[in-house]
């Protein structure tokens, strides 16, 4: 089950009222959507609520679900809007300010066979990622973890594709430099 199955799940939910497809859709996107909400809201509980609100709406409107052209984007945008509404309610800055968000990346599953990515290097990379400016980090995260395309990120964050391209290059460069630095230092010691 992957993102390519979303249109099929959408069809099953709309036509068959298929609860299993609904559940599959939830399992496919709950974690990334919640992490996305948490970027703006910080609170994991409220983030879960925002995502659940969106999924309640999906089931409520299941009969008309096929009218949605790109369900994955629809969910991301709905979560973004839901998160902004919650921020408004909390009398916080209602405008999406990409400089005030807190982006948390999740560390990947380590595979012990990998010779190159030692725990030391991994730490180094994590540190470099964490030091990225919030906007840059969010773009890196959405492209890497959520596998969103440039145009999708652009729609979601209202930023230009050119900016995304540039920010991602910056992120990649900084991470690569952190690794290079490490490798170089090691060679020097020898």
């Amino acid at each position, binding site marked *: 089950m992957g993102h390519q199955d979303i249109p099929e799940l959408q069809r099953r939910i709309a036509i068959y*009222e298929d609860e299993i497809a609904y559940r599959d859709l939830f399992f496919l996107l709950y*974690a990334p959507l919640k992490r996305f909400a948490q970027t703006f809201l910080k609170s994991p509980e409220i983030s879960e609520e925002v995502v*659940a609100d969106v999924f309640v709406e999906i089931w409520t409107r299941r009969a008309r679900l096929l009218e949605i052209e790109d369900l994955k984007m629809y969910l991301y945008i709905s979560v973004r809007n839901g998160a902004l509404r919650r921020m408004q309610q909390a009398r916080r800055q209602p405008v999406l300010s990409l400089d005030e968000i807190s982006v948390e990346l*999740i560390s990947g599953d380590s595979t012990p066979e990998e010779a190159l990515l030692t725990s030391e290097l991994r730490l180094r990379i994590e540190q470099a990622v964490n030091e990225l400016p919030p906007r840059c980090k969010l773009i890196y995260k959405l492209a890497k973890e959520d596998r969103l395309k440039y145009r999708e990120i652009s729609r979601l964050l209202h930023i230009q594709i050119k900016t995304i391209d540039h920010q991602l290059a910056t992120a990649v*460069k900084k991470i*690569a430099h952190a690794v290079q630095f490490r490798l170089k230092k090691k060679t020097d010691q020898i």
Partner: protein
Amino acid sequence: MMQTDRLWTLLGRKLAGEASPEELAELEDLLKVHPEAHLSIQAVTETWDEPLPAEDQEATQAYERLAHRLKDLGFGFREEEGPQELYLPATRPLRRRNKVVLVGVLAITVLAVAIWWVSPARSSADRSGREASAVKSSVSTRYGSRSRVDLPDGSVVWLNAGSTLTYDPQFGVTNREVRLSGEGYFKVVHNENKPFLIHTSVMDIRDLGTQFNVKCYPDDRTTETSLVEGSVEITVRRRGERYTLKPNQKLVLLNEAIGADSGRAAPGKAPSKDDEPIMAIRSLTYKADDTVAVETAWAYNRLSFADERFSEVTKKLSRWFNREFAFSNHSLEDERLTGSFPPQTTLEQAMEALKYGYRFNYEIRGEKVIIY
């Protein structure tokens, strides 16, 4: 410096899946003149491609809360969690949304039906490895539960209640043979060189690339193979004959002992609909507005029967709901019933619906259901 900036831009695009073939070629060329960047690029790429840890546990809990909320909102929504893999994609185009087809109109409230997940049971001998080659793997389902079995070759079997599927540890390596008792829906990955063979007590089924249902409960009147898609070849062992089915056909074989039994029970009775031939090839049964055959409805989580003897229907009900059924009025056994119930229908709901359509009474006494 400008050149390395270009390198990072191109690498970023490549990772994000946004690079054009020309850009990928350009990146290759740049790498040739910047061998020092190789290791760091490899590290960045590996980091990028690392699988993310599964967060299923958190999602499961969140889903339970969501299902609860939907139920509170008045949606007939199950709260039950746990793998629910009994869905099979429709193989025929859908004309209209499936509705409950049932004699009499009945509002059915939806309640959870627990579906037990049975994982392949491996014996300890298998694990010790000493007798590994001799030990067969088997998956069994209890009454009231169904299960999905993923075989090593990619084929999938959905097992109905009260069934056992046995296969060799060498399955997929030297052979693709399984033994079935009960009922299974097979979605077989075709392999020209290794035919998929299913053995039952009376017939052997050889797949020729395909989706089909095999029903061979030892206590049923008949053994049936229903073909949904593709082609199967069936050998009826005691007749030594081979048959090839076309899609939407089924082969029905009267089980010997029970067949003889029912003949004895009706002496002097004129031939009726009940006197089934020893063997027949028939069309699958479709109800109006339904794209799923009655024979395979169970694999879609629906309990379904069409014009079947009450005594056969109670066998289905018994396996489905894990209850014992008995007739105190035996004349009812030959009544013919039709019904189809959506997932999550409870025993009580099913019995009330049937009672509404056919004249009989019933009483549920603990684990036993008495029909009179």
